[in-house]
């Protein structure tokens, strides 16, 4: 038995011949927020569903709040809060009625129901709207209300599956503040997202791609540790032709479009200043490259492409 509230050992899920999650190891400490980052279909939801006891692992095992997810799934369920990827409250019920429903389902003691529902309404910022039908609420409220429903029974572990997708930026910030408050009170939280900027809000980030955990660490660690070369930003036009030209150069490890510029990862000893001249030879105008600090997205792009080229060689 692990001391960590969330612990996965070689967790694997296969659907027929397709392996959705492969030998995933993950430890999350009490009060920690771990961001689960990866593209759609990488296996984030499948992992979370295994940890919730909704899917049976094909191999490996996992413990949540000290209980085995396969053998003690009912005990696991009593100790977790879960927000599924799809918004799943009852649209024809008001916010208060939804809260009342989940309080009943989780058997919140009767004398505490009123207080906990008031707390959840305040947390969601739903005061004055608690009697509105949920289907009429805007995205941010719906999502905070869903979080409110998921924590009514004060679970020590929270699994949030892409809770901020489709929610406007301000509401996203507010949601992350709530998550930090909950972690501050001791909740252990695994939150998945495919928005890289949200990774910066997490204590640690687990990068997952094609069912495999490719890296895990604090955002700072990942940015410093994972790049195999030096990163430059290059303003050039046209972007598409420049990208193609750069990717064909041997000293370029990776190039990708970021907004209106390119991020180019060069071998350590390559001469970045020669790039504009090379591009000019192909009728592409470019300014002098500028060395930049990598973002998590750079790290992720590079890790994924490295794995892809490795797979390509095999």
């Amino acid at each position, binding site marked *: 038995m692990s001391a960590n509230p969330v612990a996965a050992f070689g967790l694997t899920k296969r659907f027929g011949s397709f392996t959705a999650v492969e030998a995933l190891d993950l430890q999350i400490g009490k009060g920690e927020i771990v961001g689960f980052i990866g593209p759609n279909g990488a296996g984030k939801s499948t992992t979370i*569903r295994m940890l*919730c*006891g*909704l*899917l*049976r692992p094909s191999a490996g095992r996992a413990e949540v709040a000290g209980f085995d997810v396969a053998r003690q*799934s*009912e005990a696991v*369920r*009593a100790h*977790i809060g*879960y927000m*599924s990827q*799809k*918004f*799943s*409250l*009852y649209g*024809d*019920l008001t916010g208060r*009625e939804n809260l*009342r*429903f*989940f*309080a*009943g*389902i*989780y*058997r919140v003691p*009767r004398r505490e129901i009123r207080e906990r529902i008031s707390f959840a309404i305040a947390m969601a910022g739903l005061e004055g709207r608690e009697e509105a*039908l949920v289907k009429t609420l805007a995205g941010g409220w719906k999502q905070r209300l869903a979080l409110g*429903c998921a924590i009514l029974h004060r679970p020590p572990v929270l699994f949030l599956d892409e809770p901020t997708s489709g929610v406007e930026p301000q509401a996203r910030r507010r949601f992350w503040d709530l998550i930090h408050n909950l972690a501050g009170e001791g909740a252990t939280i695994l939150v998945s997202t495919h928005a890289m900027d949200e990774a910066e809000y997490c204590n640690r980030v687990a990068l997952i791609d094609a069912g495999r955990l490719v890296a895990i660490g604090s955002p700072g660690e990942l940015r410093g540790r994972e790049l195999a070369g030096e990163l430059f930003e290059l303003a050039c036009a046209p972007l598409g032709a420049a990208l193609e030209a750069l990717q064909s150069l041997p000293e370029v490890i990776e190039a990708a479009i970021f907004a209106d510029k390119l991020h180019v990862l060069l071998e350590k000893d390559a001469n970045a200043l020669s790039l504009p001249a090379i591009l000019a030879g192909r009728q592409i105008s470019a300014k002098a490259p500028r060395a930049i600090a990598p973002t998590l997205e750079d790290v992720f792009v590079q890790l994924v492409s490295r794995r892809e080229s490795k797979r390509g060689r095999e």
Partner: protein
Amino acid sequence: MFERLEAILVKEFLELRRDPWAIFRLIIPLALQVIVYGYAATFTVHHVATAVLDLDNSEASRSLISHFLATRRFDIVDFADRQSTVTRDLDSGKATLAIVIHAGFARDLASGRGAPLAVAVDGTNSNTALISLGYVGEIVSRFEAEEAAKASTVKAGAAPPTVTVSLEERPWFNSGLEDRWFFIPGVIGTLTLVQVVNLTSFAVVREREVGTLEQIMVSPIRPVEFILGKTLPFFLIGLADVALVTLLGVLWFHIPFVGDPFVMLYGASLFLLATLGLGLLLSTFSRTQQQAFALNFFLINPIFILSGFAFPIAAMPRFLQWLTFLNPLRYFLIVIRAVFLKGVGLSDLWQEFAAMALLGVVMLGLSVLRFKKSLD
């Protein structure tokens, strides 16, 4: 157990109340169908379009034709003058029945040798054809009896020519042999079955589709709590259905209700148990509402046909007769018809009650077992 059950029940009724179409969906189609069945579902045949070809043109032949005219069963649409006209009438559908009286009918009748009478009937609807022929037989035998009586008065003093057995028919429980008395009680069972199986199977599948089922499955709720919470509201709706159709039948169509309403209530409760079980079982086999719809569609018709609602079970092949034992509707139809028309009680119906209870427990049990709190 009760907090969770209460939570689900409150939620179900709130959702029902917020659904502006609920009343429409639950009551109007049901009432309309009862009325349509009440008026349209009948085996009685009136006003059969009839063509007549009288090649004898005698007093006797005209007397026979007037016997046909005297009932409301037959409308003579064509007095034909040759066989080809009669054939055309039947081909075109202008006439369903044709009576051909051959030349020499009166002579043969008088001689006592027996006079042949040809009757052709459009057999495409075998039911109508059979019933019409039955009426023809009745009319002809009445005609025969009258002719025989006439003949014996003419030969006064002579011994009666034949000894006849006169059949006195006395149908019990439905003395007028009204089809409506047979159909309306049956409609209670069939419509309730459709309504309840539909509602139940869709209710669970809809939660699956919307995603709320996943949210419920990650909670520590027990399958039996969830299933009870999902089915109790439909049980109450089903009872209301039964009451509504019964009232319509009694008040609108004047079907006699001679039995004990409580026997009906017990029977309906057990029947609902079985139909709820069936609906839930279907929902555990469906991922989407389309699948649930297809399954319903696939099952409802056989359930009707193998219930005795319209077609007598005794006339079915042995194998299909065995299948009817699995059909809850079969038992409930016996119960309703018996309660409505015969007024019999539990002592005569306990076998049907036991069968419905058994089916209900098995199907509900199976759906609890099949309701896994996992997405695998």
